[in-house]
């Protein structure tokens, strides 16, 4: 145990003292802070007018001045209504004085409304809210001309109550954006931390320090100490990144905007504890597999191809979780939350969505722990025999022989 702690402490110290590690972590944190400040930066550059400028031109006064109500309709535009012509509008858009314009003209018996932007590459149709608001203004204008009574007016004005309901008995909470974001963070955190184990072992092999190391302590101690050390650094790095993101979001983003993107009510301490637990267990499972592959190569250029099977397994686990998330009550999603290669990425969402019972979580964690123990037994045995083997990259047959060797 003392040796495991010594290896762990050395690994932590060695990793955190590296300039590359410090600089990359600092860059990630700076990018996060900058990312959450993009609206503020845009505001500083453009001034307070962060809303797109929309010019409405009704030269023939077809809407009889009623378009003024659009200014208070919260359409997301800074609206100006005045007389103009197409050429002048074109000039203003090209000069970036305005972002878009609506030109209302009568053509025979029809009313032609043109929505003019600089380029339609990013726009397929006229924005729905503009269409519906202009339609509503025109309808109200015509109805008021008919001189209808209040009852008549109410009878023709739709007063429907639209409700969203599901046939599944299980109620789903949270929002998909937050879940996908969390899935990605977990995937990258587990993938990159576990990969570090492989890279660290190959470095020890290529620098020939391994021979000295295995005479100083047992291979099991080296694998466990190294895995723990890198895991702790990875966990701290993840906490630092997520913490910086959450603090930046709360500090720099508008509260309403933040709530519209992330349902903060579903982020609970229980979810935090379970997510960290799945990070640790998922990391251990993949790190031990990477320790195995890392020990089978002697040259840094072989590490990528040796790690490919484990990388594929990680990606399959992630996508199994990611795609079944679209249909969270499906049996495949339940399977993904229990299957050890995907459960670290999947179960935290099911908890966030309120779909996972405590029993589900316990069963999933137990399956993952048993898997880790099996992987550890195989990985440590192969690692112990493979670390002193120098030469070309091992084939699957060689690796199996390594497992059989006492």
């Amino acid at each position, binding site marked *: 145990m003392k040796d495991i702690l010594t290896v762990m402490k050395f690994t932590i110290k060695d990793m955190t003292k590296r300039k590359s590690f410090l600089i990359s972590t600092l860059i990630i944190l700076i990018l996060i802070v900058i990312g959450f400040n993009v609206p503020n930066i845009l505001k500083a550059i453009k001034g307070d007018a962060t809303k797109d400028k929309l010019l409405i031109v009704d030269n023939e006064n077809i809407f009889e001045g009623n378009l003024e109500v659009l200014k208070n309709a919260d359409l997301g535009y800074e609206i100006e209504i005045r007389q103009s012509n197409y050429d002048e509008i074109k000039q203003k858009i090209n000069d970036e004085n305005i972002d878009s314009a609506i030109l209302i003209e009568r053509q025979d018996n029809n009313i032609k409304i043109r929505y003019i932007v600089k380029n339609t590459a990013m726009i397929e149709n006229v924005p729905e809210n503009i269409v519906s608001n202009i339609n509503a203004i025109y309808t109200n204008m015509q109805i008021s001309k008919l001189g209808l009574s209040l009852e008549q007016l109410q009878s023709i004005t739709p007063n429907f109550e639209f409700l969203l309901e599901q046939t599944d008995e299980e109620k789903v909470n949270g929002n998909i954006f937050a879940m996908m974001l969390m899935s990605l963070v977990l995937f990258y955190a587990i993938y990159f931390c576990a990969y570090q184990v492989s890279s660290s072992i190959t470095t020890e092999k290529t620098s020939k320090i391994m021979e000295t190391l295995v*005479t100083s302590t047992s291979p099991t101690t080296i694998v466990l100490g190294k895995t723990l050390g890198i895991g702790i650094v990875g966990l701290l790095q993840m906490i630092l990144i997520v913490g910086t993101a959450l603090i930046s979001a709360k500090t720099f983003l508008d509260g309403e905007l933040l709530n519209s993107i992330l349902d903060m009510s579903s982020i609970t301490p229980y979810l935090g504890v379970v997510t960290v637990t799945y990070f640790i267990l998922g990391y251990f499972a993949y790190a031990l597999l990477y320790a195995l592959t890392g020990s089978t190569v002697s040259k840094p250029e072989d590490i990528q191809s040796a790690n490919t099977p484990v990388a594929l397994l990680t990606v399959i686990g992630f996508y199994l979780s990611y795609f079944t998330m679209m249909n969270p009550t499906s049996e495949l999603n339940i399977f993904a939350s229990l299957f050890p290669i995907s459960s670290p990425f999947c179960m935290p969402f099911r908890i966030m969505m309120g779909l996972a019972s405590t029993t589900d979580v316990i069963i999933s964690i137990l399956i993952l722990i048993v898997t880790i123990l099996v992987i550890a037994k195989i990985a440590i045995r192969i690692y112990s025999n493979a670390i002193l083997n120098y030469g070309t990259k091992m084939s699957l047959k060689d690796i199996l022989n390594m497992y059989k060797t006492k």
Partner: protein
Amino acid sequence: MGLILKNVSKTYVGKKAVDNISLELKEPSVYGLLGTNGAGKTTTIRMLLGIIKKDEGEITWNGKKVDRKSVNFGYLPEERGVYPKTKIFDQLKYFAELKGMNKIEAEESIKKWAKVLKVEEYMQMPAEKLSKGNQQKIQFMTAIIHNPELVVLDEPFSGLDPVNTEILKNIIIDLVKNGKYVIMSAHQMATIEEFCSDILILNKGKTVLQGNLKEIKESYPANRVEIDVNQNIDKIIKEFELEIENEKNNVYTIRISNEEKAHKLLSKLVEEGITINKFEIKKPTLNDIFIEKVGE
């Protein structure tokens, strides 16, 4: 007591790497382990250090079966290695702690050996900034920093300049004086002859020669004669049908099959009135014995 290997064997995927070898190191001294590349030296060393398991036989240290924990050993592997980006002091401390030293003991030992090996100025530098020779001295420090009872040195002098070779030689002599047991593997036979009291020569995993070096050499008949004369004696040597191994400025090394021929040659030189500065009948060197035993 000391180190005893009894009928030890190891097989790798159908190939016998070490076949039934035995050796004893009963008192503090340097034991030479010799052999060509792939003869089984490294496998033997790894087994006696408990890094790999033997298939057959017994290895004991002071009567107890050897494993990684039971022997306080130091090891300088043939494959030199250091953490390239880590400060020398940090890596030495790491290995000292893994070998059971506490922080204070480790730091004191690092200071002591850094002074002896003249590497004090490199302690706060990453290993990649050191020359190969200095990196080797650091690895030698790793092997002895925890005051081990048994030290295994695989090619300790390869790559070192004469000054550093001398420093290391003195340290090895001191280790033996201080009651340490040393096993040394080297390709330079002169080094083995200088240090080792006992040797074991391996060939293809098998012991081909073993015992006290002095006794082994004594058991071999003389095989060459060195003559320093003041004129060319090629013609006389040819008359005796002897092979000239080397000749420079009338100093000859001549191969002989027995001492009688050497005596006859000496009589002839005296008879011819040739001035003889030196005439020495020589026993075979360890190099000769090694080549005879393992040469194809």
